[in-house]
């Protein structure tokens, strides 16, 4: 492969990684919001923590892509839809679905250590190492980098990427506690926010915390976590916008949500392609602002639904400005 092609291949792999991280976020968000508090507080916090780290992973991968002279792409054409096979060669399908035992099992399967995703991230590190030997790889504009100012709620920090060491470190953070965890996923019961995602879902699945003395390959034996799979909004799984009758309350809320989601993605793209400060607007305005609409949908029954289900946002690209109408 020519050098130019190799660089393109690296860019393409990093873009795939961005889409992978992005596509995990709506399913986690829907599950968290479907959980009624206070019954499932601890479990909700665990999933919320994972969801926030997926956002951080997206930021870290974007830093690497920007550092090696690539361009992040986020748009209608690569918007994730559900059900979705998150990764080629993986049979696990992610849904937009309420909190349930089955759902947590899916999340566990997806976040399982030592999978094709592990190999995928290992492959990115190999490409970085190889290309760094044969060319000036880190040609990106350093002002595109996101840094720790942009992430304040989770257990890790965003690092700016400027060279091979920082690029490898960024990818290792992504792979170390996320779905790309390798042979030795992070097992740190003393600092739960550093635990590999798989273990955090296992804690919910088994309804117990891990103890530092536990064997990571066995179920946890620590303190019980109260879990109530019935304390959940009965939302429609993988909803479609066409499923909400035009002009109905749910259709309006869904449009409002999607319009805000789209605006947030546009701002995210802007933030990842040269104007990092826009990320603040995306977070505080777009992301935080969308929660109340999603919750209202989940509390609103679908008229005439025989199973008594409630609404759920569809996460579509919607450029029409509908907020406030």
């Amino acid at each position, binding site marked *: 492969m020519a050098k130019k092609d190799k660089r393109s291949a690296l860019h393409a792999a990093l873009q795939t990684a961005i889409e992978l991280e992005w596509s995990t976020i709506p399913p986690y968000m829907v599950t968290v919001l479907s959980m009624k*508090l*206070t019954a499932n*507080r601890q479990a909700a916090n665990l999933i919320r923590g994972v969801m926030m780290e997926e956002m951080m992973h997206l930021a870290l991968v974007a830093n690497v892509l920007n550092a090696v002279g690539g361009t992040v792409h986020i748009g209608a054409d690569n918007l994730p839809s559900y059900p979705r096979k998150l990764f080629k060669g993986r049979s696990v399908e992610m849904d937009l679905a309420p909190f349930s035992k089955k759902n947590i099992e899916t999340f566990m399967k997806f976040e399982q250590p030592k999978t094709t995703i592990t190999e995928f991230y290992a492959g990115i590190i190999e490409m970085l190492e190889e290309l760094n030997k044969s060319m000036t790889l880190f040609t990106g504009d350093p002002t595109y980098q996101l840094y*720790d*100012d942009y992430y*304040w*709620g*989770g*257990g890790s*920090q965003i690092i700016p990427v400027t060279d091979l060491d920082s690029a490898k470190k960024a990818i290792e953070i992504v792979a170390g506690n996320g779905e790309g965890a390798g042979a030795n996923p992070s097992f740190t019961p003393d600092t739960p*926010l550093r635990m590999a995602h798989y273990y955090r879902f296992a804690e919910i699945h088994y309804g117990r915390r891990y103890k530092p003395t536990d064997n990571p390959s066995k179920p946890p034996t620590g303190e019980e976590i109260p879990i109530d799979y019935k304390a959940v909004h009965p939302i429609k799984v993988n909803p479609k916008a066409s499923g909400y009758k035009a002009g109905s309350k749910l259709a309006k809320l869904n449009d409002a949500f999607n319009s805000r989601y789209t605006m947030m993605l546009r701002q995210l793209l802007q933030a990842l392609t040269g104007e990092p*400060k826009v990320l*603040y*607007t995306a*977070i*505080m*305005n777009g992301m*935080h*602002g969308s929660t109340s609409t999603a919750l209202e949908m989940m509390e609103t029954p679908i008229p005439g639904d025989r199973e008594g289900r409630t609404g759920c946002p569809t996460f579509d690209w919607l450029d029409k400005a509908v907020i406030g109408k």
Partner: protein
Amino acid sequence: MKVDTLIIGSGVVATALTKRLLEHKPNMTILILEAGQRYKTKDFGIWENFQVTGDYPYPQMFDLPYPERDKPGENRLVGEGAQIPTAFTLNGGRALAYGGSTNIWGGWTFRRKPEDFYLKTLTGHALDWPFDYDTLEPYYCQAEDYLAVSGDSKVQDPPRSKPYPFHEFPYSYVDQPVGKAMAKLGISYDHLPIARRGVSAIPSKHAPCQVTGTCDYCPFGARFVAADYMDDLRKWHDYPNLEIRLGVVVMSIRMATKRRAAGVVCRDTATGDQYTIDADRVIVAAGTFESPKLLLRSRSREWPNGVGNDSDNVGRYLITHPYMIYAGSLPENPDKMQWELNFPTLVSRYFDTPKEQAKGKFVLVNAPNIEAQSIAQMMQAGYSNAKINRVITGAVPISLHGMVEIFGQYENRVTNLDKTNHFGMPESVIHFTPDRAALERIQEIGKVVKRIFEQMGGTYADGNPSVNSWRCDHAASTCRMSKDPKDGVVDGDLRVHGTDNLYLCGNAVYPNLGSINPTDTVTALAFRLGDHLNAAG
């Protein structure tokens, strides 16, 4: 209705105290009554409107100005102070809202100095505090963690046992001329500690400061606002028995016996319904004006002059800080300095020392020193590049801001007016006559500023200070702490003298104010009160 703890007011005192009580006993029944309403924080619509129009988003939280001809207004100001245009203006100086005045504060977070606890002993003014700096020091550390203060931990005057949670903001470019001049004159200065969250490895729900320069309404919640932290208590912790009611005015405290509070009588301002609430203990945290007014309204056979007012101290000794702006100008501005941050980074506490205490300690703040010139306006007016450069390198107005300690006088006080304001609360009568010595002191401070301006190569304007605001922002001392009940209203544990279960916390309990902003101290007092109540069980 019966609760364990009833808190009147929902500002930083209520928030910090509630946090401390619930950490200790998560099932405790706490009811917080707030007369005002909730205003949205971190809202981009409000923020953008503020950015575009420059209009502060707060007027709805404010008292109306004092009445004028053709303008009914609210509250009354009597005494010689009524001649000072800005004397004890309530309008703009406090916020009646969920989260209290932290909705509108600037975030300056100074500690008192050890000598500030011994004003009476050292100068004969006011009263000593019932405890010393060392007693409060650990609580200052907790308060600074809570308020998310960015400050210079190397500064050890007053001494500190723990670093600030976030490092100091660097001095801005415009601090240089004044810093250099102060250094030449031997006037020390430091980084101004400020409650704006920084970056740290500790996860937080609150975002770090991004220096947008729009601190008056932070779009991210990086500047501490108690409302955001009260939201945390309500939304993120599953305290089953925490309740907050908005739009509820407490009319009086009901006493079961001389020593025991039974609860309160309150009024829902939306419905006009009046009802009673029983409580095992009542904590008044309604600010320097409303707290004493409530005690004064709470009359009974046992307390004919109002609860805690047998010695006629409730509402008296009212003080605030005169806030002075001294103006001047520099003949030229070759480095084209423009005000950058919209918050100050340099403060001199050189005159905040025992030596200055008898005459009134003061601090000088560089905020803002060099006035921004609107390059955009000049461009719109069609100025050429050369002309704009001439303007911004030419003569430029400068200023220094100051706050000075003034001493409480018995005659200066707040009482109830038999009239209701637009929040549904009884209005205030403020009796205020400024101390002549304080007015002279303000002129004396001008001489120090003049030396600094001249050292900078500038001139000091005639008629300084150009602004001499006695607004109520830092009002204090209306329910003083005292060891002896005859001198004050509450004891060192903040319990109203002569009662068992009635407490009062706020700037009102300060026997004196010093020359610095009161919020760091009041937050420390709230945590200390929490520990006291937790220990009492």
